[in-house]
């Protein structure tokens, strides 16, 4: 190996050469890769990187695995083994070359100085802040020993619990659940706080949750964005909405808040919160009375239309609809009739809209409205909510067998989760399920056996679950809490062992979306930093240690290659659906599934095979066979608190990065001017927002974006700021969710608070 003495001397002695050299230091990854000794990396160097020209970079394919409609396909530019910058993949018409504000902060996230680097153990007890660095072997041996000890004492591993949710939706990350299956029957925090009410509703009506391709919206003639804010939470969808609008389509936003999407619509209608279902029923009635409904389609493809119509005739009075929704009757009529006349027309229902005690019933009502208008099964039509139709992978990482002789739960165990797979035969034993929406209490109340070990992955319990004070008590009572994560957060604070996890750029995976129809390969773009490991590598290491102590105690492979795991997920069905012959084709960019229009053939997976206005299942489970008006929860305090998702973060991810703090530094509570005036609160004042759950101190912004009687605070987690809306959220359940996901959702927007100036 040779080097150039002249080159070095030129760098040392020539000011411009030297400055140029120093400029490249950051780009080279030196600053973040030095192991550290007496000499430390100089952070004060110019850390800006130059653009060096396409051919000077290695590019890789990645995907954003976050819980987001848009699941971007990413192109990652790497130089000398260091990520330089990312772009969105141009091959995907959906991503169209650009990620969002969060995706563009990925380089900062991967190389953040505050990333978890090594396995650590909290030696002073949970919450003490006294951490000791431990080796991976020591960490996994400790956990393995505890698991085997518990199995010996209890005769089962039901005392081991897993809480894992949507931190990473890459398919191989179901290997975390697979890891738990591979040790025996265990306890799972199951269900979902997110969208179960709507899932149930769509399944009752149509036998599935299966939305049209969002890219079709550019050809819709009428789009209702109902309780959804894509301008904040699905930015890539907006271009299709804009295109439709520029071609003359009407875009109507119905929302209690004048959202970012509302500001770009043709028409904004502010509705009284929780009355959306009634509005939809009223609109259907108007359409039918004007004879603009699609009688032919309804005759051929629906069950129970007669009963539904009778219900509308008898029970839905338009004056009442107007009064309760707070919308003038003329406006409702105009909306209904123009919606019915436009062909095709579509409605996009947001997850926020169903986070009420009557959420499921509202989705049913809107599904029915779309059906009545004849837009189910039509290109650029549809009642849009989400889909899982491109998720037909092998789930090899997930599917691990229980070790022989495993003893499990014999009670009733209904809770699954929206991504759970149905098994064929019924086993004698099952895992024990606890409701993820009642984590704090269910963990501590579980008996025979008690829960003694908790593994947290792809989830931030303290940021996203409820009843914080009880969570602390619960965690403290558990023998061993293991948290696998990328950053130190409040959940890690109450852990015993913290395991540093790889980002998607440091591992292989494969990704699809629950909204669009693209498939993305996720390649390993860089070597894992420090000692981070992929969730599946962690599982393999656990298996190695468990089998070392007791042969056969864990069936998870004892060594894994994330690339091989990714390859194992593909099957002929996926290849057929996406029109490829091999996963390797994805190295050239993401591909789109062959176009299918849901329900175009009139076939529904309901018991009757038709669109069900009248659903026996709905009657059995939820007391109402028909889409009906159900009143929303009555207030228990002075103001409704609505806590929508922020554009700056994906739950507790991204806002903690310095780059994000530059564009969005702090949280606010948004208060209507009349409400503010009544309490003498001015712009910028610090107020206390409180209810029986807790209290938050936050700065106020005064705006009529929120209606009187409602305050708005975005759901986010900041660095060095105790702000967390879950302090105030009451974990009251929504009506539906138990049918398909085993437990109802949470009526997050039916939280009530009061506030006062501090």
């Amino acid at each position, binding site marked *: *190996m*040779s*080097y*150039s*003495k002249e*080159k*070095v*001397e030129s*760098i*040392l002695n020539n000011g411009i050469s*030297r400055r140029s*050299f*120093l400029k*490249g*230091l950051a780009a*080279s*990854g*030196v*600053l973040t*890769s*030095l*192991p*550290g*000794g*007496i*000499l*430390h*990396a*100089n*952070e*004060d*160097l110019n850390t800006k990187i130059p653009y060096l020209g396409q051919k000077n970079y290695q590019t890789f394919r990645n995907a954003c695995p976050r819980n987001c409609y848009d699941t971007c396909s990413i192109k990652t530019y790497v130089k*000398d*083994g*260091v990520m330089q910058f990312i772009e969105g993949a141009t091959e995907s018409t959906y991503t169209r070359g650009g990620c969002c504000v969060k995706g563009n902060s990925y380089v900062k996230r991967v190389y953040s100085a505050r990333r978890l680097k090594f396995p650590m153990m909290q030696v002073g007890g949970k919450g003490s802040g006294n951490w000791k660095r431990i080796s991976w072997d020591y960490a996994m041996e400790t956990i393995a020993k505890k698991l085997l000890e518990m199995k010996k004492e209890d005769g089962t591993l039901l005392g081991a619990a897993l809480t894992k949710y949507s931190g990473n939706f890459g398919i191989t990350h179901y290997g975390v659940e697979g890891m738990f299956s591979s040790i025996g029957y265990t306890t799972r925090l199951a269900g979902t706080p997110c969208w179960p009410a709507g899932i149930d509703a769509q399944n009752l009506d149509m036998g599935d949750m299966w939305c049209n391709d969002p890219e079709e919206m550019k050809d819709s003639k009428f789009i209702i964005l109902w309780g959804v804010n894509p301008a904040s939470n699905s930015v890539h969808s907006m271009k299709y909405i804009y295109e439709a609008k520029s071609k003359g389509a009407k875009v109507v936003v119905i929302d209690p808040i004048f959202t970012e999407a509302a500001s770009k619509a043709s028409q904004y209608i502010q509705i009284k919160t929780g009355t959306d279902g009634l509005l939809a029923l009223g609109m259907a009635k108007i359409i039918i009375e004007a004879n603009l409904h699609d009688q032919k389609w309804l005759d051929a493809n629906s069950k129970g239309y007669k009963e539904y119509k009778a219900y509308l005739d008898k029970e839905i009075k338009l004056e009442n609809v107007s009064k309760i929704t707070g919308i003038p009757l003329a406006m409702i009529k105009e909306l209904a009739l123009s919606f019915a006349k436009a062909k095709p027309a579509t409605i996009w229902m947001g997850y926020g809209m169903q986070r009420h005690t009557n959420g499921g019933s509202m989705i049913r009502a809107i599904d029915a409205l779309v059906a009545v208008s004849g837009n189910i099964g039509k290109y650029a039509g549809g009642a849009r909510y989400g889909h899982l139709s491109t998720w037909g992978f092998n789930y090899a990482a997930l599917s691990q067998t229980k070790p022989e002789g495993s003893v499990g739960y014999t009670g009733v165990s209904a809770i699954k989760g929206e991504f759970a797979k149905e098994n064929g035969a019924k086993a004698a034993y099952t895992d024990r399920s606890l409701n993820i929406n009642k984590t704090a209490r269910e963990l501590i109340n579980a008996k025979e056996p008690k829960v003694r070990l908790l593994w947290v992955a792809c989830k931030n319990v303290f940021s996203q679950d409820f009843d914080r004070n009880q969570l602390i008590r619960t965690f403290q009572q558990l023998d061993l809490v293991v948290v696998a994560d990328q950053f130190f957060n409040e959940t890690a604070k109450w852990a015993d062992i913290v395991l540093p996890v790889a980002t998607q750029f440091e591992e292989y995976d494969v990704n699809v979306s629950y909204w669009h129809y693209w498939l993305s390969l996720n390649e390993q773009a860089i*070597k894992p930093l420090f000692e981070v490991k992929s969730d599946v590598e962690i599982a393999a290491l656990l298996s190695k240690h468990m089998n070392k102590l007791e042969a056969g105690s864990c069936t998870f492979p004892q060594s894994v290659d994330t690339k091989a795991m990714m390859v194992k997920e593909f099957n002929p069905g996926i290849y057929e659906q996406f029109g490829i012959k091999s996963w390797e084709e994805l190295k050239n960019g993401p591909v789109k599934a062959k176009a299918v229009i849901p329900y175009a053939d009139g076939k529904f997976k309901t018991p009757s095979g038709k669109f069900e206005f009248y659903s026996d299942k709905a009657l059995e489970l939820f007391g109402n066979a028909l889409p009906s008006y159900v009143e929303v929860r009555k207030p228990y305090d002075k103001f409704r608190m609505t806590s929508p998702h922020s554009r700056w973060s994906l739950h507790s991810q991204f806002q903690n990065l310095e780059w994000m703090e530059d564009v969005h530094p702090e949280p606010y509570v948004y208060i209507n001017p009349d409400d503010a005036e009544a309490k003498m609160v001015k712009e910028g004042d610090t107020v206390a927002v409180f209810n029986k759950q807790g209290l938050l101190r936050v700065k106020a912004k005064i705006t009529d974006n929120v209606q009187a009687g409602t305050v708005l605070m975005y759901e986010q987690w900041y660095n060095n700021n105790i702000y967390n809306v879950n302090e105030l959220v009451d974990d009251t359940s929504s009506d539906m969710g138990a049918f398909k996901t085993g437990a109802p959702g949470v009526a997050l927007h039916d939280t009530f608070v009061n506030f006062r100036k501090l």
Partner: protein
Amino acid sequence: MQTLQPQTTSRLDAIKYLRDIFNAQNSKELKKAFDALDSSIDISEEDLEVQFNRYFIGPMETVADPFASVYLDNPDVFMSKTTLHVRDLYETMGFTYSLKNVIPEDHLGVELDAYYQLLFLEEAKEITYLSDLRHYFLHEHLALWIPRFLERGLAQSEKDSPAMTFILMQLKSLLIRETTTTRSS
């Protein structure tokens, strides 16, 4: 008899342990790093420290001062031209030094730290941006003064300290290995 030692520890680890020896803050750290080099020399922690101090630290006149400037500039002073040159080198390498003006940058322990970290980048992280600088540091600096330091130290240690001989021979082997596998162009 001075002979090249067979390589039992990895290239990076050998540098790391030698670094740790010369940066040890107490007898425990010194012994730990010494033992990591697998000398098979039986010596107590206290004896090791005593000998090490006599050779490299003080309080009496040392056998061999572990500072580059002593061999390259004036043998009676620290913090001279060479020190500043090394300081400049570290800055170009992207380092910051918290003991600036407290302990000279050209102390053997600090220089071994720099060399170790640069080699770590290349070997463990496959980052080659500073490779040229590492070679320059090796051939145009370390290779100039360390042999003289070794000569002075070994002349004494061969007579009265197997432990110090071992350390110095480890360093000598390291330097020979590094310089013979890389060349200036």
